[in-house]
């Protein structure tokens, strides 16, 4: 998964903060009548619209703010957009100084876990029944231990890794997509067929940063080992340096050695992925649900999608790779903890999450009582159906420590280039995890 902290210029290196003079210090019992300001830091995860800009009128978090302030006139929600490239550092510095936000919006998984020291465990504020309504809490528990402290509330069911294709190109070559490829091998065979039929780039690929690798490996390992594949590697129950990982890397490498991608697949960057596909440079791309909206906007009904298929003989042939992206946490040092938690509870209502899904159209709801009718994008509709009925595997880079992920991306790019062997790659990853696990 693309991590803002790496994807954005690292020259921007940085750290973070927040003002002392909070509106009020609601410690007394009559907090209800006292003015309270709750500070929310959002690295563009809830405040942006799909045009890429901060949108203070129609984006989700601003809508939620307005609605909540109306219900609770004594509360002011103050949202600050924190640059994705600097958000981690900024939060860390502010948390050490104890002047960070009351609520932090961030990435679920490893990113949230790395801030465990600063995040209020939320279990005690929610009843068992309330928690049972929310899916994906396993992604934000300390140490990925099902009984560990709940460091955040997962927000949304997440986006999953999919293949997108242009139906017109398939139709032009008399390829029926009524039954999309069921295995990784038949997916590559389909691409080969397109190539033979004269399609220059059956799969448009841009893997300079190694992100495609992250998605494909997540899928192909998940297919073999199941939903807990990477949790188990993290906790040491299984090893990264294993036959399943090697097999996945070998399958992934074939994507580049079969001659079905553009020639510069390994050196073109993430920025070209979507734009290249939309510009008609390829018949298919490997991507994720976050691009549903622009793909649908550009191709309309001509856009088709299917989940990254599994290696043949996989034990979990229908597993989906991906999962919770966004998590909402309350800081340990918040001076308005009670009020902050009230706002988080409001955010976790089925209705509020429905609003989120409706506005973003990038991921389904993770609430048991979600209203599926808010999904209007047909690509997301298809994905939501898959999510409802198939198992899911939480990806490698959502779980592992930051430095291991950085190495993972680099190795993915290098394996695609043929400069690192799969066996060597998994060995290096194993060593990196040992070195970087807290």
């Amino acid at each position, binding site marked *: 998964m693309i991590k803002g902290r790496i994807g954005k*210029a*690292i*020259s*921007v*290196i940085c*750290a973070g903060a927040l003002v002392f003079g909070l509106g009020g210090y609601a410690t007394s019992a009559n907090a209800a009548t006292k003015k309270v300001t709750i500070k929310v830091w959002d690295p563009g995860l809830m405040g942006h619209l799909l045009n890429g800009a901060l949108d203070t009128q129609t984006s989700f978090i601003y809508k939620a703010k307005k609605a909540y302030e109306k219900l609770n006139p004594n509360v002011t929600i103050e949202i600050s957009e924190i640059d994705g490239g600097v958000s*981690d*550092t900024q939060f*860390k510095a502010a*948390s*050490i100084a104890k002047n960070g936000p009351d609520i932090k919006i961030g990435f679920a998984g490893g990113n949230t876990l*790395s*801030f465990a*020291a*600063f995040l209020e465990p939320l279990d005690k504020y929610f009843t068992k029944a309330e928690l049972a309504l929310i899916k994906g809490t396993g992604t934000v528990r300390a140490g990925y231990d099902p009984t560990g402290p709940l460091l955040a509330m997962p927000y949304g069911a997440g986006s999953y890794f999919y293949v997108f294709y242009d139906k017109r190109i398939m139709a032009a070559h008399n390829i029926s997509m009524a039954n999309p490829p069921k295995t990784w091998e038949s997916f590559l065979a389909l691409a080969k067929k397109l190539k033979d039929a004269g399609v220059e780039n059956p799969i448009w690929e841009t893997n*300079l*940063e*190694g992100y495609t690798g992250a998605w494909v490996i997540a899928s192909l390992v998940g297919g073999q080992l199941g939903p807990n594949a990477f949790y188990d590697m993290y906790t040491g129950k299984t090893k990264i340096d294993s036959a399943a990982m090697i097999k996945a890397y070998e399958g992934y490498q074939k994507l580049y050695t079969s001659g079905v991608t553009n*020639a*510069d697949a*390994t*050196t*073109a*960057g993430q*920025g070209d992925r979507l734009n290249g596909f939309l510009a008609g440079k390829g018949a298919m791309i490997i991507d994720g649900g976050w691009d549903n909206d622009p793909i649908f906007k550009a191709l309309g009904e001509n856009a088709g999608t299917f989940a990254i298929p599994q290696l043949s003989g996989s034990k979990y042939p229908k597993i989906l790779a991906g999962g919770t992206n966004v998590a909402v946490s309350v800081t340990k040092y918040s001076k308005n903890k009670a009020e902050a938690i009230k706002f988080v509870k409001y955010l976790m209502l089925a209705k509020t999450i429905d609003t989120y899904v409706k506005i973003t159209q990038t991921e389904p709801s993770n609430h048991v009582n979600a209203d599926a009718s808010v999904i209007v994008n047909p690509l997301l509709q298809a994905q939501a159906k898959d999510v409802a009925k198939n198992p899911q595997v939480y990806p490698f880079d959502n779980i592992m*420590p*930051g*430095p291991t992920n*950085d190495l993972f*991306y*680099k*190795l993915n*790019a*290098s394996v695609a*280039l043929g*400069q*690192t062997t799969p066996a060597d790659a998994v060995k290096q990853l194993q060593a990196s995890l040992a070195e*970087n696990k*807290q």
Partner: protein
Amino acid sequence: MTSPAVVEVGPVKGPTFAGGRKNSSSRGSLTRQKQRIGFFAALPAFIVVASLLFYPICYAVWISFLKTDGVTSKFIGLKNYVDIFAAPLVHQVFVTNLKFLVAIPIVIFLGLFSAVLLYQEIWGWRFFRIIFFLPSVLSTSVIGLMFRSAFTLNGPINSALISMGLTPINFFARANMAIFVVVLALIWAGFGYAMMILLSGLMSIDTDLFAAAEVDGAGWWQRFFYIIMPSIRQQLAFVSIINTLYTFTSLFGFIFVMTAGGPLYSTTTLDYLVYQKAFSAFDMGQGSALAIVIFGVISVLTIAQSKYLKNDDGR
């Protein structure tokens, strides 16, 4: 080299303004009171810098002996340093950084070349003076993307190679080729900055010297070597020191856009490692230790450069 005027100011250790070394008469005339004025003039700057940076520097040095995530910490002595010297990745990245130093002499040469041309009022010099500095205004990501698209497999550079009957090169797939493109980008983006600084040095040359040299019949090269070069030695030293510093401390953002640091770590620079370690959840101490090691390396390079390029640094 003939002309008395030229010889008087010229040679590298000239006594007057070029080297800045004061002659004995001025030193002798400085009373203690004047020294005190000098001290007080420098004081405000020193106080501001010290009050901002004294604590942070002590903090950074202190945590380089700790294993810390910023909340809890454990004293581990020199272990962070030992780990750094033992890590093969640090060695590899260090060597990569040394390769990027290649850009510096080229930047200085081109900066000097264009500064002298502008100084001589080549056609359009007013225009070029602004234009060449423009890359410093552009963001690193724009520059990075520009070079990426120029050198990509289907980009204009490869099209040109093909039209010349050569085979296209996948520049970003091979370590040394990728470094070559990054160095090219560094040169393109950096020579205007060097030019600007060198030009400011040229501007303060006493123009009477040229008139005198002309009277004495000194040629272009003679004036270049005996008037221009000694006069801007300080600026040359400055440009070279600043560029070295930059190479070791702030390249990665630029590189990331072009190569993402790859293939593997072949275009990753030290500042990226410092960043990664300084902000990774529990390794702040190692980030500090690495920064201090880098500080040591740059210090040696800086002292060497100032010893070589000017004769009065550190006064």
